[in-house]
């Protein structure tokens, strides 16, 4: 095991008919890391995910994962990965345990060892007492846990999760991430997640920002943030448009407005803050200076906000 990479993607392209979803994407994923595909919906992250989990074929370029070439050794590769999709792939009419047993069979496990493995995982994820319940009756958070247990049955080395926090409340979301971090630490599983949520992106060890089918930026969250200069100043006001005009005419500061919120980036945020507070303390409701976020990184690299829906036709 000379190198520590787990996934190598080189010049991957993918299109649906005329619509290009991925145009020459290359990156690699370290073994034992939590890696994020981050970007707006339509940016190409789901396509990339579907190629990596073998739902879509490799059209052009090469993908090597866990030492398998995806275009040639698909079946072998599938035995070594665990996949969860946005919609839980559980059969909601079966019980929790039945779901796990069927899944085990699909992966060639059976008998006592499968039983033991299922029980262990259900206990580990705190759903052992639910094993006889029909999946339909579980909450979203519990379903996610069952789903995680289900896709870990065959001890995959690589775990792929598409928008794992879809439909989860903040508590369940936190729990999910604790699980993922524990998995990586305890079983040295490599985890790949796709997300369009910044707080999730922040928890990844490394990530790629995908926009319109290409990688706009890549690296660890902190390196990405440090890569852009200055701080962001946010002002909230009851009369944002008037304030914005005054800020331009009196201080020469160009803010951009969205709703009641004005934002700008400055190399010296604290000076800007002082100036504004001195002159306009009556007009503002709140003002803050923040270190740049990944959202700012995305803005800087693509000129768009992450939450803007991109439709590529």
């Amino acid at each position, binding site marked *: *095991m*000379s*190198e520590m*990479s*787990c*996934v*190598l993607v080189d010049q991957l392209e*993918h299109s*649906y008919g005329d*619509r290009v979803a991925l145009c020459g994407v290359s990156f690699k994923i370290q*073994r034992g890391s939590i890696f994020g595909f981050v970007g707006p*919906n*339509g940016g190409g992250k*789901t*396509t990339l995910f*579907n190629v990596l*989990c*073998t*739902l*879509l*074929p490799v059209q052009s370029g090469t993908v*090597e*994962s*866990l*030492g*398998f070439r995806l275009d040639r050794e698909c*079946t*072998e590769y*599938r*035995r*070594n990965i665990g*996949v969860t*999709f*946005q*919609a839980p*792939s*559980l*059969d*909601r*009419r*079966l019980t929790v345990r*039945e779901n796990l047993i*069927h*899944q085990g*069979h*699909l*992966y*060639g*496990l*059976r008998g006592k060892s499968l039983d033991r493995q299922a029980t262990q995982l259900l206990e580990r994820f705190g759903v052992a007492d639910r094993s006889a319940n*029909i999946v339909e009756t579980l909450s979203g958070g519990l379903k996610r846990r069952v789903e995680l247990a289900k896709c870990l049955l*065959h*001890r995959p*080395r690589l775990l792929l999760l598409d*928008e794992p926090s*879809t439909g989860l409340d903040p508590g369940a979301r936190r729990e999910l991430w604790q699980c993922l971090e524990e998995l990586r630490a305890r079983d040295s599983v490599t985890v790949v997640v796709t997300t*369009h*949520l910044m707080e999730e992106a922040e928890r990844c060890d490394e990530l790629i920002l995908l926009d319109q089918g290409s990688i706009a930026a890549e690296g660890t969250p902190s390196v990405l943030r440090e890569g852009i200069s200055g701080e962001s100043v946010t002002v909230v006001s009851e009369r944002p448009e008037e304030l914005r005009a005054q800020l331009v005419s009196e201080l020469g500061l160009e803010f951009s407005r969205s709703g009641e919120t004005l934002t700008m980036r400055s190399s010296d945020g604290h000076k800007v803050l002082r100036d504004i507070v001195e002159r306009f303390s009556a007009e503002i409701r709140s003002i803050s200076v923040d270190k740049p976020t990944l959202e700012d990184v995305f803005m800087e690299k693509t000129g768009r906000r992450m*939450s803007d*829906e991109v439709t590529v036709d």
Partner: protein
Amino acid sequence: MSSPTSRPDDSVTVVVPRPWLGVWTLCRREITRFLRQRSRFIGALAQPLLFWVLFGAGLHGSFQAPEWAPSGMSYQEYFFPGIAILILMFTAIFSSISVIEDRHEGFLQGVLVSPVSKSALVMGKLAGGTALAVGQAILFLGVGFGLSRFGLAPGMNLDISFLNGIGLFLFLCLVAFSLSAMGFVIAWRLDSVQGFHAIMSVVLMPMWLVSGAFFPGGGSTVLDWVIRLNPLTYGVAGVRRLLYSDSFGMMDGEVAGLPGMSVCVGVSVLFGAVCFAGAVHQARQVSRAKGSSSRQSTPDSKSAERSR
């Protein structure tokens, strides 16, 4: 080939390929799901039973027994094998269309990324449908036979030995399997169950109506040809022959207006093989090239809505 990414340790992953286990587990799942939905069970059995009783009573007067039938055959008796085929059709096909539901619920995606081959996936789904359909059909045949024995339905001259009973069972399996496969071929590409219902009423019900299940041919030449070209005709005729296999020479081949038993088996095998091949072919194709943008964007946009 030296690979830069390291393969998993063999000592860690001990997963043996067992294709039959995949087939078995998918088949079991179909049956479990079916038994949990009482309404499906009742719908697939009670409705045809009601059809049989009501149509049988209503059309009794206008029915003219075909040439091959023993004198005094009631319409209900004529209709009996037809209803068994209707039950096979309903159950087998409703079982296959659950593949649409599987896709929507995400279960199918889970199977598609598992090491189970496409042919095992199809086989499991069809085996489940076949088992359910045959089970229901036999239940109906038993109930119908019982009703006529106890005088609750007109008497029937059914005559079948134990050995031919096994033959009947196998033949029912064959027909049910073909119908499941046909349902699978139709359902795989469809996005909604609604679309399937349209096909059901335009293609499947007429197919049953002109199979000799509901009325014998002999009305017009065109109709006779339609009946002759319909693969289901041979399913109905086969069941008919087997039910009377031990009386009035039904197995001898020369019964006017009914195709011979070997023809029935031959056509049914061919039909089943074609449908099965079509189903496997389709499952493989779509897994290789699935990517209709509409299907992709739906979950994406849904999740976007939720996050707002």
